[in-house]
């Protein structure tokens, strides 16, 4: 037990983003109590949330400039943590921007909504920087529970209720798997610290009980596969993304997923790295299944939110390919892809938010007919995201896929890279179909009375499109950072 248990000042600096987000989230709740109904309809809570999230980016960078452990090694602030912290905070910013108009349109109160988003991002930041299974678990729970509530935020909407209850039941189930895995690994190694688990697995006395380690690792793998919607545990994702409010679908498929991948990578590349030969087959088979299930199911969807949900499953498959290579270059490729994916996915859902209108009436792909002529700017920005999903050069999606398949080739998974490429060829069909509908079909009644882009949505769309293009034209900016911070546990 440490004699001096009072945390040093620099340790507070290292959790500055979490502190800012938590304080702002609490303030939003207090604001509603103090100001009453007058705040409800105004944008106050949203602006406060936006301010806190924007402030959390420099805070993450300041924390990242002071790398090291914090709070008795429970957290580790390194490049990897900083990368994912900034990523989830940016996803939070984009979600908040998209949500202003949505909440006004659906006549919903805003303070709890933005409070929950801030707390969810806090949980994701904790996940990104945790160096300990207990912290990972608490971060995961904070992020998940606020997501369950957000998925059912419009309480009177049946689709919201369905999404929330499905997400809650299956999500809790997944967390239970993960927690049970933690209990097993603690039973075998006597520690929950990631580095110490790694040393224990490298030493010989634990090797004799390797079957127990295998059980622990598979339980955690199942729990995390649920959270990242990897096959065969993807079943919840289409229903949840379809039923949840559109901005929340954007948030769920980018933020919590990136954070879940962050703990996936950290756990399996540090603690379970000594047994990587044993978990890799499970990960690549899941990756293959996820890509196939996601892409082929997306082909037949008529609801655009459901199609994007299957597309997000397929994209999780590509990231799993990178993880299956269990190499530093694979980790860097996964990080890059998650960043590129977050922007294009949030962007696509932002367009859906804008287009669906009150009560989300227009969510079929055919409803988009003629959007290219009615609102050329919206359609053009949407096209950027769709082309990035396809993997056209000069977009982030191209380099994301390129680095992933290159990592697979370098890792000796040639056939996996080939199957992945074939899969993305299949995927091109359903993304390009939207382009065809937007530009080549006559505008129907669904394009009547389409209001111009709200400022928040517009800002989010332009920002995501710009980021997608920057990642496609200057990929080395992000990639070099990812490469520099991808060597975990060495």
């Amino acid at each position, binding site marked *: 037990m440490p004699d001096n248990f009072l945390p040093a000042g620099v340790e507070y600096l290292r959790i500055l983003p*979490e502190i800012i987000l938590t304080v702002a989230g609490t303030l939003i709740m207090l604001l509603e109590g103090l100001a009453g*109904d007058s705040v409800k309809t105004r944008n106050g809570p949203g602006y406060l949330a936006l301010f806190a999230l924007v402030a959390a980016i420099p805070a993450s960078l300041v924390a990242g400039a002071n790398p090291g452990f914090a709070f008795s090694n429970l957290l580790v602030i390194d490049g990897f943590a900083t990368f994912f912290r900034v990523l989830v905070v940016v996803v939070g910013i984009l979600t908040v921007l998209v949500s202003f108009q949505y909440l006004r349109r659906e006549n919903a109160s805003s303070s709890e909504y933005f409070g929950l988003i801030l*707390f969810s991002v806090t949980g994701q930041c904790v996940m990104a920087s945790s160096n300990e299974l*207990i912290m990972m678990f*608490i971060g995961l729970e904070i992020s998940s529970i606020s997501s369950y509530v957000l998925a059912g935020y419009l309480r*009177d909407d049946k689709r919201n209720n369905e999404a929330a209850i499905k997400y809650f039941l299956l999500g809790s189930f997944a967390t239970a798997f993960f927690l049970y895995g933690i209990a097993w690994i603690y039973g075998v190694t006597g520690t929950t610290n990631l580095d110490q688990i790694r040393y224990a697995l490298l030493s010989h006395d634990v090797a004799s*009980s390797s*079957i127990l380690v295998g059980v622990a690792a598979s339980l955690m793998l199942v729990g995390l596969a649920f959270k990242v919607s990897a096959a065969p545990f993807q079943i919840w994702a289409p229903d949840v993304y379809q039923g949840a409010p559109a901005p929340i679908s954007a948030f769920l498929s980018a933020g919590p997923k990136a954070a879940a991948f962050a703990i996936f990578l950290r756990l399996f590349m540090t603690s379970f790295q000594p047994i990587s030969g044993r978990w890799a087959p499970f990960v690549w088979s899941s990756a293959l299944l996820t890509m196939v299930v996601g892409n082929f199911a997306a082909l037949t969807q008529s609801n655009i939110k459901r199609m994007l949900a299957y597309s997000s499953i397929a994209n999780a498959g590509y990231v799993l390919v990178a993880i299956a290579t269990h190499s530093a270059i694979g980790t860097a490729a996964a990080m890059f892809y998650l960043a590129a994916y977050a922007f294009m996915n949030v962007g696509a859902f932002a367009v859906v938010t804008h287009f669906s209108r009150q009560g989300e009436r227009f969510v079929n792909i055919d409803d988009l007919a003629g959007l290219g002529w009615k609102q050329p700017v919206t359609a053009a920005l949407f096209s950027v995201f769709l082309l990035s999903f396809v993997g056209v050069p000069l977009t982030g999606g191209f380099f994301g896929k390129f680095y992933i398949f290159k990592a697979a080739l370098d890792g000796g998974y040639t056939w996996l890279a080939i199957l992945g490429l074939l899969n993305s060829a299949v995927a091109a069909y359903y993304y390009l179909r939207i382009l065809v509908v937007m530009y080549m079909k006559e505008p129907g009644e669904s394009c009547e009375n389409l209001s111009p882009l709200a400022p928040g949505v517009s800002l989010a769309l332009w920002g995501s499109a710009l980021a997608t293009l920057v990642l496609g034209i200057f990929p080395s900016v992000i990639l070099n950072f990812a490469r520099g911070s991808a060597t975990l546990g060495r």
Partner: protein
Amino acid sequence: MDAFLFLVLAAIAVVSALNLVVQTHPISSALSLVGVMGSLAVLYLLLGAEFIAAAQMIVYAGAIMVLFIFVIMLLNAGGERLTRRSAYVKIFGVPLMALFLGLVSFVIQAALPRGEMVVFGAFTHGGPADIGRSLFTQYLLPFEVVSVLILIAILGAIVLARKEID
């Protein structure tokens, strides 16, 4: 004596757990769960985890079970009605269960010859003082961060359950 107590309580826990699943009325299931929780508490005590044993009794067997029963009575849930089981369950149920039990016994078999047995009374750091000390020193951060978790639980309950006034 310890081993005897352990065997008896473990048996009670397993039988109650089975009963929990088999019973068709929710109240009977809930009461079986009290049996599981209670016997687990004594098992914890046998292993020297005094604080966990007390928490198990007060929180799980006490508070949470009361909530369970409140909810069951509020919903006025009657007995479970058996529907015709689906074809999948009929065909795959028994073989999959057998496979699962086989797998579990294999894992236990493979892990057995480690020579490390639990000794009753060997662990003496499970008292409230020890738990409190580590909560406020080494595990200070999780202790604090859990408060955020509880806060969103409250917030979520308000969002999902409040009445619309306006």
